[in-house]
């Protein structure tokens, strides 16, 4: 029964082993849902957020998760609009990662707001000057786009494909996927940017405030760049992880190399832009508001080391590694650089959210700290567990890596050749 849903010629673990893999994640999901339920039923007093630390763990992780999910739009854009055909090997996986990241982030946000049932107000009475309005509109539209992009992957399932209307609809929808890729790119551009804009517009938080172009602060563009830079890195990482866990080859080394090149190039541009932005901010924007930049970094533990780590260690370094063919060819360097790039963006999002709120703005207020409560951590773990489960099911039942079967055959050829070479 189970086997009939698995694509032909793909080797997947037995239902029993799959169940064993699923169970702990399902348990984690159940615990996380309990935590989220507590927050919804009893209110946000279950968290350690407070009036000074009004945004906490969830916003930081949402921003990170959405940046990591940028691989879905970038891969779609490169494949369907710029016709980089090699990326066909990872597009399905990228879409699933996108669905996981965006739906997970939106779910966490629904727990994060005080009155989730009023979310539709934003659509009904939009304040078009608010970055959060832009984010809400774009993310909900883009999640819809991602779900529509996910649909053909589901309908291509071996068993579902037997239903003629599914088969035909999948085909016709897939023929129009470039429209969705275009719309997705447009939406991603704006919401990744607006997420950066969220903090960049905060005149009242000089640590985050940046000047910019037109209505957009510079963080708008930096967030787009950094998200686009780590999207491919995250796809690379997840694919490597799935390869390791499933003990299979899923994509060709050239695809990894391409992902790393794209990631490295964008990251290099980002690091450059970020460095310029930081200098402008330190020397002009912040002092202009009466805040000396040195002051921000004198509150322990947020010293200048964090700036150095963000730009040099987790930015320039991985960019250089990914742009150097000899280093990139080495699995350890490649994976390490991709992981560091992702870590760098997480650090950037941490700085923009958590550090911004920790710093005092009033001279008589103090530097505050915040540790998430177990309910907050649990709720986020639910998102992680949900992501792992959705990806696991997708990997088992849908053909996420179109070249998997072919790579197995190629491996067989190699085996045979070496066997023959041994014989004669």
């Amino acid at each position, binding site marked *: 029964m189970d086997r009939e849903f698995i694509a032909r010629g793909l080797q997947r673990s037995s239902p029993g082993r799959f169940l064993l893999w699923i169970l702990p994640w399902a348990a984690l999901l159940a615990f996380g849902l309990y935590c989220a339920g507590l927050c919804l039923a009893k*209110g946000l007093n279950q968290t350690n957020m*407070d009036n000074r630390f009004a945004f906490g763990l969830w916003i930081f992780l949402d921003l990170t998760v959405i940046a990591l999910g940028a691989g879905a739009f970038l891969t779609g854009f490169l494949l369907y609009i710029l016709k980089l055909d090699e990326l066909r090997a990872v597009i399905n996986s990228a879409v699933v990662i996108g669905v996981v990241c965006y739906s997970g982030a939106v779910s966490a946000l629904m727990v994060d707001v005080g009155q989730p049932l009023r979310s539709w107000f934003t659509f009904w*009475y939009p304040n078009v000057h608010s970055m*959060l309005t832009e984010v809400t509109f774009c993310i909900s539209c883009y999640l819809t786009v991602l779900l529509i992009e996910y649909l053909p992957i589901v309908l291509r399932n071996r068993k579902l494909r037997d239903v003629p209307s599914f088969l035909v609809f999948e085909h016709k929808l897939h023929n129009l996927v470039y429209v969705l890729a275009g719309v997705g790119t447009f939406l991603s551009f704006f919401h990744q940017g607006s997420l950066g804009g969220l903090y960049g*517009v*905060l005149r009242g938080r000089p640590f985050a405030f940046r000047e910019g172009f037109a209505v957009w602060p510079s963080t708008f563009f930096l967030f787009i760049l950094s998200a686009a830079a780590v999207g491919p890195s995250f796809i690379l990482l997840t694919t490597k992880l799935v390869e390791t866990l499933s003990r299979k080859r899923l994509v060709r080394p050239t695809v990894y190399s391409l992902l790393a090149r794209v990631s490295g190039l964008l990251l290099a541009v980002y690091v450059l832009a970020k460095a310029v932005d930081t200098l402008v901010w330190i020397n002009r924007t912040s002092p202009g508001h*009466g805040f000396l930049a040195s002051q921000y970094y004198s509150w322990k533990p947020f010293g200048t080391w964090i700036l150095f780590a963000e730009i040099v260690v987790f930015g320039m370094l991985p960019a250089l590694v990914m742009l150097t063919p000899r280093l990139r060819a080495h699995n350890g360097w490649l994976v390490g650089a991709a992981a560091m790039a992702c870590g760098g963006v997480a650090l950037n999002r941490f700085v923009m959210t958590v550090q911004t709120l920790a710093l005092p703005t009033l001279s008589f207020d103090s530097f505050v700290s915040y540790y998430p409560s177990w309910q907050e951590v649990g709720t986020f773990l639910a998102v992680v567990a949900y992501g792992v489960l959705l990806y696991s099911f997708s990997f088992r039942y849908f053909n996420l890596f179109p070249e998997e079967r072919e790579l197995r055959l190629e491996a067989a050829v190699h085996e045979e050749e070496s066997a023959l070479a041994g014989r004669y």
Partner: protein
Amino acid sequence: MTPRKRYGMSIDIDKCNGCGACMMACAVENNVPPVPEAANDRKGITWIRVYRVDNHRAYPERRTAYVPVLCQQCGHDTPCVHVCPQQAVDVDPETGIVGQMPERCLGCRYCMVACPYHARYFNWWDPAWPAGMEKTLNPNVAPRMRGVVEKCNFCHGRWHAAQQKAAAAGKREIDAADYVPACVEACPTGALRFGDLDDPSTEVAHDAARPESFRLLEKIGTEPKIHYRSQRDWVRDIANAPHPDGKDQHRG
């Protein structure tokens, strides 16, 4: 059409002795519920908060002062107004008062993040009053529900009552004496004054123009309408950005 006002407040820090009567009066007037036992000092609600500041000197040079901080009613680029995704915050063009509509609020708390003065408060709990105390609630002010943000609105209930009174008397403009926020009324030392900043005849307009008058974080350009003043240099220095060496400051 009633003439436009630009309501503001002046606070004489030198007169404030930190008694907290303003906080109390505010809570009673605006139906701010008592803080639940589980709350810490960062989770409770008070629309006006009195901070204690000092001059960072050791005894015997140590001097302290008290700074009441309420919504600063920013008049330019009001940070909370243009971040709210669903227009739950607005500036009343007639009064210049920054208003919060709790029934429109999603509870996203973006406005709290945007506010440089930490003058916005979130309802982390359902509002609850001890048995019998609900009888003391002000019928002119709606209590707020869990999960929404609230803040000082210069006692909107009082402004409304004053308007009704004026309308009943057939007048187009309210009598200034009819509209005084609860904190101003309650202050025993007369440190707080309230009125139309655009009217040069008012005390606040006069106070705001005095050389020892200052506003908090003026340089960020939000044009707050709360004007503090003090004769002491070190007190006037609190208007500026924080100094990292002042980490030992306490909050009231």
